[in-house]
């Protein structure tokens, strides 16, 4: 299954999803496409007007442009999601979209999709980290294989 991970750039979550036979939906892949496309020139991420306009499918025009730009990339990824793993209150180093408003919208849109979603609190101790990983593994094992 296509599993959206939140934070959307978490390498640890992406790795876990892949290990258990699913396809992680992460933002890095999209950004890589943009960085390696030669004719786009708006470094470092190469977010262009096209993304901002695409973002309007998910948010209104009066929404700040940074949210629209993020949603131009994240929105189509959410559309593909068949399941999601959400880590609440994650540390920056674990991954982040850099925008609290985008975060609440992403979680809201995932919630609207009526797909299996696992929400786990970011761990503060090693023991909690083990619990978190165990929960994610159980969730992923119970998802039907692609």
């Amino acid at each position, binding site marked *: 299954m296509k599993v959206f991970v939140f934070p959307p750039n978490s390498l640890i979550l992406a790795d876990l999803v892949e290990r258990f036979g699913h396809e992680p939906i992460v933002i890095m892949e999209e950004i890589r496409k943009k960085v390696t496309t030669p004719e786009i020139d708006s470094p470092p991420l190469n977010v262009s007007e096209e993304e901002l*306009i695409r973002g*309007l*499918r998910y*948010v*209104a*025009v*009066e*929404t*700040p442009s940074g*949210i629209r730009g993020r949603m131009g990339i994240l929105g189509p990824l959410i559309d593909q999601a068949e399941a999601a793993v959400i880590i609440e209150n994650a540390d920056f180093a674990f991954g982040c979209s850099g925008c*609290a*408003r985008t975060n*609440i*919208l992403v*979680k*809201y849109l995932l*919630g*609207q999709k009526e797909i299996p979603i696992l929400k786990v609190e970011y761990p503060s101790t090693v023991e909690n980290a083990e619990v978190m990983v165990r929960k994610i593994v159980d969730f992923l094992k119970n998802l039907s294989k692609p």
Partner: protein
Amino acid sequence: MIKIAQISCGTEWSGVQGELEKAADMIGAKLVFPEVDLESIKKSVEEFGLDVESPNLKLMIARAKSIIDDPSEADAIFMVTCFRCGEGALTKHALRKYLQKKTELPLVMYSFTEKPKLGELLTRMEALATIVERKSLLARERQEGLTLGIDSGSSMTKAVVMENNEVIGASWAPTTDIFKSAEKVKKEALKNAGLPADWNHRMGVTGYGRHLIGSKLNADLIQEELTVASKGAAFMSNKQKGEATVIDVGGLDNKVMTLLNGIPDNFTMGGLCAGASGRFLEIAASRLGIDVAKLGELALKGNHKKVRMDSFCSIFGIQDLVSALARGSLAEDVAAAACNSVAQQVFETQLQEIDLRQPIIEVGGTALVPGLVKAMESILGIKILVPKMPQYGGAVGAALLVSGIV
């Protein structure tokens, strides 16, 4: 009295609550605040799923849930947040979709600054009230007898005379002095219909100048342009049954309405800048040294991609136009870019706020600019229906509706 549920954040702290109440009062409506108790707020936010931080937005969500639980609390919904608040914008738009899915109540949104324009508030609230109060009048599909409709727009004033479901006389002229312009087109429309200027007729008026003209000419119907233009558009394009969307790019602002059986059930009204209006096309045509009527034809021959133009601000848009011409761009490419820029802004500021329903009908004077219609079709990927004499959408709607008033 019509009850309009106010679902909002920040109105009291922005000092605009008084203006909202004044606008409601002027149309004989009352703003009501859906009942919520403190305990239900947290639960409502959790159920809704948008984890906002601002307590006032949490209250807004709870009020929306309250309306869904008991729609009899109000006849219509007016949803407002502060302009430039990201969290407010996210909440408002998520709630709009949610409410439209869960209730049948007509709904309109607005983003306010510390100085909201009373006219803008008034038109929106008036349209809400009309949809609620005059549903049976709005259901009228045939024009009967002899009636006159006047649409006093910001750029042009239009008049039509109708007899037994046909337009028998029409005229339009630039709006200068509001009353004199209306008198002029009325006289010409009557003359075109073969009727004397002093003919005693039933009359409906709409548009910006409707109140002034309506009271001076003793009109039988004075109604805002959102519902009237919708009605005219559905009538003129023979799409009075089923769903439709009406786009009216006006001289100063734009309106987009969704219809069910010819009756609007949702609408948005733009007007952030003249860059998204017919006025921008007029300025562009003037700079190109052609009549605005020729701009659309010229645009059909051009390629908008060759000229970068952003008419989000009309002044900057014209700067782009002047720079493009100075660089040697072709007039047709500049004309195409001007049309595309207006269409793009209408799309970005309005069309994505509404669930488009096909067919899409375009009315208003700008529908006579084929380059604009083509640009809109290309952005939406949908064929747009333009009725004959689209500039008379409002006037025809007024003439049609007034025939239902005995």
